[in-house]
């Protein structure tokens, strides 16, 4: 059954695979870049921000994937209603567990929205430069946060409904098929 949501049809794509975790992003149908790709594309080459983008990218795609897993000490609560992703057998919930990656450089200037599904699976979305301490004061960032939350909720629902299953090796469809390029409607 195809359900049209505000965010349209999107696909879960693997960004990186390591010994400790699999990092996903999503690509909206018809978009040239994934959400994480959009985040990286905004990196202003040659600027003072470039190093921050690259550090954050290494943390997410290499270190969380290979060294630490989805370790919550690297995340900061983003002010969403919290709740762990329920197992498929749990009662339906409409809460998601959204975080922001918090990196270790003095006055780190970036935000990256993400959804830690488990200690083995992380989904990264978009983000950008912090232009104010309170995100509500930055309308563009607030929009990205809402978009990320919307994707996260739909992924959470797909897990809850059993359409996709998180495992130690990543996501699998309910029939056990390949975890790559899972499309959510």
């Amino acid at each position, binding site marked *: 059954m195809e359900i049209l949501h505000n965010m349209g049809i999107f696909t879960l794509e693997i*960004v990186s695979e390591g010994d400790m975790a699999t990092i996903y992003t999503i690509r909206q149908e018809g978009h040239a870049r994934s959400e994480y790709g959009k985040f990286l594309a905004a990196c202003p080459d040659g600027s003072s921000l470039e190093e921050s983008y690259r550090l954050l990218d*290494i943390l997410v795609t290499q270190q969380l994937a290979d*060294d630490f897993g989805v370790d919550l000490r690297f995340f900061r609560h983003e002010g969403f209603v919290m709740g762990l992703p329920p197992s498929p057998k749990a009662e339906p919930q409409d809460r998601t567990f959204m975080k922001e990656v918090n990196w270790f450089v003095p006055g780190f200037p970036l935000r990256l929205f993400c959804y830690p599904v488990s200690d083995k699976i992380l989904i990264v979305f978009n983000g950008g430069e912090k232009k104010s301490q309170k995100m509500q004061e930055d309308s563009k960032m607030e929009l990205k946060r809402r978009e990320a939350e919307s994707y996260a909720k739909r992924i959470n629902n797909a897990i809850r409904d059993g359409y996709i299953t998180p495992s130690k090796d990543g996501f699998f469809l309910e029939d056990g098929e390949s975890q790559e390029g899972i499309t959510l409607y």
Partner: protein
Amino acid sequence: MAKIRSKEVAEFQARTPEDLKIFARHYAALVVRIGKILEMQGITQAELAKRMEKQPSEISKWLNGEHNFTLRSIAKLEAELGEKLLYIPKPDEFVVIKNSNVTGTSRRSSREGFSGKFISTEQQVEGVKFSPRAS
């Protein structure tokens, strides 16, 4: 190393300087190790601050990623915690690396570097190349 499956990410990382990749790995590993040692020893940040005669806010910055560690501050932490934070091979020591992880060390007997199979006293590790000593 984690395998990058995204073309756009691979292209981005191809332009990331190697020293930045190394710094990122070292920094995160250091902060996580310190955090774990504190957990194991049941020490709070406040207690550590008191022992080191520093302000709690300063220790908090150290442990929450707002501090560029110097060798001196790492040495102070090692002394206070009684645990190694940093390992640097001795001049005549080889580090055995397998799948990006250090799996052993060995002293070399000649000045020449070499590669090949390394058989430790504990287990046989095949297909492992010796890396030359850090200069």
